[in-house]
């Protein structure tokens, strides 16, 4: 079966985020960018499904500026077979991303679509669910285990009280949580091979999708910072302060 994986180019997980002085956003100039960590887990899961003989082809799609091709090439080096780049320099919000992905799903007809549960820039946690709704598919969100059995996929989900398993009819959408797998690193030979794998380029207009945003960001500020407090010498002093100074116990 064919698996479609969506990946997003975001600020690298390890980079210290700084708000721009004019409060229009976060400073991304000369900042290291990388594949969203949850998307790495999505790619890894697809590759493992292929290694198990469940997936026959992995198509990776990314929406974003020209440089997003780097993240598509990374996914190809990790084991995806071909890439689709929906190229735009405009901001693409979750609903519009879901509409673009829906158009790709209609072209590619995958049996399973795997996405990260959220991107670490906008922290929205929306696109996978929106794609599932728009395409009339079931969804296994926040997945910690994915098992394909016949025409169904069983997804174990990380929920507030613990774990919950659902069975979804295929085709279906899965969004990844942290403990689904541990992504591998790409080997140098595979990075070289990935350069020769096919990568299609298209625009939102080619897919017939209007990506005008519905939400406007009025300002972006740094969070109120917490002041470091005092160091206490021992446990007795700590308990005394909690009881008599902070009055929280």
């Amino acid at each position: 079966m064919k698996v479609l994986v969506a990946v997003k180019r975001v600020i690298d997980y390890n980079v210290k985020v700084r708000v721009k002085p004019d409060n229009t956003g976060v400073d991304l100039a000369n900042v290291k960018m990388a594949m969203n960590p949850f998307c790495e887990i999505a790619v890894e899961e697809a590759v493992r499904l292929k290694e198990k003989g469940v997936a026959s082809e992995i198509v990776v799609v990314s929406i974003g500026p020209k440089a997003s091709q780097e993240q598509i090439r990374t996914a190809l080096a990790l084991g995806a077979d071909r890439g689709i780049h929906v190229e735009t320099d405009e901001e693409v919000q979750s609903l519009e991303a879901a509409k673009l992905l829906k158009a790709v799903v209609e072209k590619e007809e995958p049996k399973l679509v795997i996405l990260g549960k959220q991107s670490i820039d906008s922290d929205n946690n929306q696109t996978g669910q929106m794609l599932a709704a728009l395409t009339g598919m079931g969804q296994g969100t926040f997945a910690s285990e994915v098992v394909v059995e016949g025409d169904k996929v069983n997804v174990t989900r990380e929920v507030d009280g613990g774990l919950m398993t659902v069975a979804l009819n295929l085709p279906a959408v899965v969004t990844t949580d942290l403990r689904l797998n541990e992504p591998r690193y790409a080997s140098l030979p595979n990075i070289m091979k990935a350069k020769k794998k096919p990568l299609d380029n298209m625009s939102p207009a080619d897919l017939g999708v209007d990506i005008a945003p519905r939400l406007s960001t009025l300002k972006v500020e740094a969070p109120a910072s917490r002041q470091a407090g005092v160091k206490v010498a021992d446990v007795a002093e700590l308990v005394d302060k909690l009881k008599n100074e902070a009055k929280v116990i």
Partner: protein
Amino acid sequence: MSILVIAEHDNSSLKQATLNVVAAAKAIGGDIDVLVAGENCGAVAEAAAKAEGVNKVLVADNAAYGHFLGENLGELVAEVGKGYSHILAAAGTVGKDFMPRVAALLDVAQVSDIMRVESEDTFVRPIYAGNAIATVKSSDSIKVVTVRPTAFDPVAGEGGSAAVEQLDVVKDAGLSQFVNEELAKSDRPDLASAGIVVSGGRGMQNGDNFKMLEQVADLMGAAVGASRAAVDAGFVPNDMQVGQTGKIVAPQLYIAVGISGAIQHLAGMSDSKVIVAINKDEEAPIFQVADYGLVADLFEAVPQLEEELKKVM
């Protein structure tokens, strides 16, 4: 304006998060209706009817909603919610699952995890793991919003007397089935709404050592949490994770034991009123946000803490 709040519950009791979301709805202003969707959830509807500021409680009681499957809830809430100006739900794993489906079915954007209401169409929310705070304005006719419960003081759960109305809308999308669940059973308070939280990190070394924290927690009536490192290492289950992608907590007192304080962890607890850090590494970033820091070996400090607490509690 008319606001539909989707109740969070477990079919038998209303979760406190619902009262926090009603508070967010009050901040927007307008009539507030609460939708209780579940199976055999009459007691939940009665509880919701007593909440302060609720105009009407709508009940969709059907097996299709018993396990809160996002496909079915999404269709139901989109159908019931299309007559409202706002649809609000708590940003827990249930709300995060079905609300984007509602937004997509209504062809509107969703505003996730709001911390503050600026006006009927403008909301404040964290981005970049809380390293930046964005003020966003929605141009859609229906605002679909998930709410960070800890950011809003709950309305009173008693005193109201809203009318309860049964809906006979059954939406079974037929796309998914519930198979099973493994829910943690605990007599301790719910992590997300507990007044005191004691959390352990990688420094705990193994799951057995969390018993030390549980003993301290039980003395104070506290919940027990964990850092991602402790969950990833398999010490404790995922539902205990506090952080950007786990639970967001804001208790009166947060005690971080053997937690270094990665930015993703701080994103989940830095709104706590008082933060205590116990860590043997005095350079650990957790000390930069702690009101009281104790540089000590946790295996000595935690048993001492238990003894000291026994004297004063």
